[in-house]
């Protein structure tokens, strides 16, 4: 390769890609499996638009997402438009405006694509496939537990065998930090050190403040408050303020419900998990698969979001990042997804009617069937069929002669006659 080689004129911008049939089939499978879980829990799909007014959309976006929306001028309205970088804000808008007269709670789900600006870094997607749910109008541990239990069911449904859903609680941290003599910047640095579990940095930051020894040890405990349910007891001992204690009670209630649902084995707790601190108001969670450094789904409570659109009701939800999921499960899905088509119908002579009739009859029986319309030698057709993942090739002459079936798996040949196909018990394999 030379650097002077011009790029192909049919290339793509960074961060977007084409999905060829096998990958597309896998993605579709993931979407279907998730949708089945949503439906089983009583959630109904909504489809938001792919363009919104920027100022309307921005009201529902957390800080990190606002600057990541693709935006441009709209000649029709003379306002700024944006491609949504996240669907939660859109669902919140729909629920708070168009559906505001409906009785609560609302159980809504979505499947769609959003666009995001990303740092100029290799491998970061700008075209993001989201799938998730919003449970609107409930502020209870049972509702939060529902989100976690559904996430766990969804992960099982897509074939993930080992995974962890890690639960946090923003109110615990807020309770510890309430009324401390630190400015906003210091508080952000402290939160960042806790987020990275960087105890030594945290010690340095706290040394510069006039925080009391008691509170200092509360903060210093945060990077280590992760693990199983025992974390709640440890945390209980380490804090004295009411707000943090209420957060722990809330988590304990959630864990009780999860136990009833039989999914506790997948759950861990991390009270130092502060992602989305400016957006989430209570419980948060993220799904992890072993060996994949980033989370594949995330969710939590955001009780202030709906009010941005004029309906002051609590809400909780989660989103899956389908491309992260696809990346993680790609190999597992090879076993689940059998790409390809049942049958390719080859005609030996000019009596195309027979070939067409066979194709039609087998399609009616539920098989996927394609006609090898090109005139070519049978060996060429077999090469083609193999590459395109057909399971069988049917060689048809006329409506009086038997049909030869060639299996592409083992090259075995067999013959069937037209009466057999008519029989109700007929199966291709």
């Amino acid at each position, binding site marked *: 390769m030379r650097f002077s080689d011009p790029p192909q004129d049919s290339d793509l911008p960074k961060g977007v890609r084409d999905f060829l049939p096998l990958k597309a089939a896998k993605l579709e499978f993931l979407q279907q499996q998730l949708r089945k879980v949503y439906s089983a829990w009583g959630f109904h799909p909504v489809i938001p638009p792919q363009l919104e007014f920027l100022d309307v959309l921005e009201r529902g976006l957390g800080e990190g997402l606002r600057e990541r929306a693709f935006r441009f001028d709209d000649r029709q309205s003379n306002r700024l438009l944006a491609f949504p970088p996240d669907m939660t804000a859109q669902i919140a808008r729909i629920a708070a405006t168009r559906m505001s007269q409906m009785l609560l709670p609302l159980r809504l789900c979505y499947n769609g694509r959003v666009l995001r600006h990303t740092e100029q870094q290799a491998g970061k997607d700008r075209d993001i496939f989201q799938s998730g749910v919003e449970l609107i109008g409930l502020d209870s541990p049972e509702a939060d537990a529902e989100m976690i239990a559904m996430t766990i069911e969804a992960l099982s449904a897509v074939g993930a065998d080992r995974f962890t859903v890690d639960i946090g609680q923003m109110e615990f941290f807020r309770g510890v930090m309430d009324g401390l003599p630190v400015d906003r910047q210091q508080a952000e640095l402290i939160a960042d050190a806790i987020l990275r579990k960087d105890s030594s940095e945290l010690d340095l930051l706290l040394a510069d403040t006039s925080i009391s020894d008691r509170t200092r040890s509360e903060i210093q405990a945060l990077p280590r408050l*992760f693990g199983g349910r025992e974390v709640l007891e440890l945390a209980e001992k380490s804090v004295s303020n009411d707000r943090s204690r209420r957060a722990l009670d809330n988590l304990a209630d959630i864990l009780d419900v999860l136990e009833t649902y039989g999914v506790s084995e997948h759950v861990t707790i*991390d009270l130092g998990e502060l992602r989305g601190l400016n957006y989430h108001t209570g419980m948060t969670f993220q799904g992890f698969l072993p060996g994949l450094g980033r989370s594949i789904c995330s969710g939590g409570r955001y009780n202030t979001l709906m009010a941005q659109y004029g309906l002051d009701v609590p809400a909780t939800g989660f989103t899956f990042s389908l491309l992260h999921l696809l990346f993680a499960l790609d190999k597992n899905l090879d076993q689940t997804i059998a790409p390809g088509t049942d049958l390719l119908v080859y005609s030996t002579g000019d009596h195309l009617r027979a070939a067409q009739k066979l194709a039609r009859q087998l399609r009616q029986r539920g098989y996927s069937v394609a006609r090898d319309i090109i005139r070519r030698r049978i060996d060429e057709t077999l090469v083609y069929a193999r590459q395109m993942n057909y399971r069988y090739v049917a060689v048809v002459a006329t409506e009086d002669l038997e049909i030869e079936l060639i299996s592409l798996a083992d090259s075995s040949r067999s013959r069937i006659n037209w009466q057999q196909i008519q029989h109700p018990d007929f199966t291709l394999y």
Partner: protein
Amino acid sequence: MNDWITFALPKGRIMQDSMELFSKIGITCPEMNENSRKLVFENPELKLRFMAVRATDVPTYVEYGCADLGVVGKDTLLEQGKKLYEPLDLKFGYCRLVVAEPKGMENSDNPLNWSNIRVATKYPNITERYFAARGIQVELIKLYGSIELAPLVGLSERIVDLVSTGGTLKANNMVEVETIAEITSRLIVNRASLKTKHQRIRAIIDGLEKVIGDEVRISQ
């Protein structure tokens, strides 16, 4: 392989220091003592694996989950800004990241007067952030080694580089002007590993925390 724990360690002295510390909590790898050119060492009894990689690549292996844990200098973490947990300061590999300049320059030059300067460094991100925070524009020259050479041949006026004893600077007739950060080696952990293997990793963190010395030390 899922219940194994994999470490990414930088080849050389830091790897020795790491294994010495790890051995205090029973993390060992006899295979490593054999003289070999291997890059991956295993202790199947304890289900442990160790990868020897370049120091600057350690965060990448851990971020992508090829390794659950790693040991790397704070300088590399500051420079790369990856999403990792860094729960422990291991206190070895101590050095400082400093701004240095040729001897004699300091007489004619007050840092308060800097507005636009040229700096050679292996750490362009840290250097840019450090000077930007002070309102100084820098022209960065990224080098991969022998940074001290740059001012001698007029490539830059100053350098940002690691100093442990100061011997190299002295030998090249340079002096430190400012310290940007004190550096030690850190234990880093992949985010998903901490969640999905929390029992084993928690035991490692808690165990190491108890055996890390109080004093920082230089690794040579």
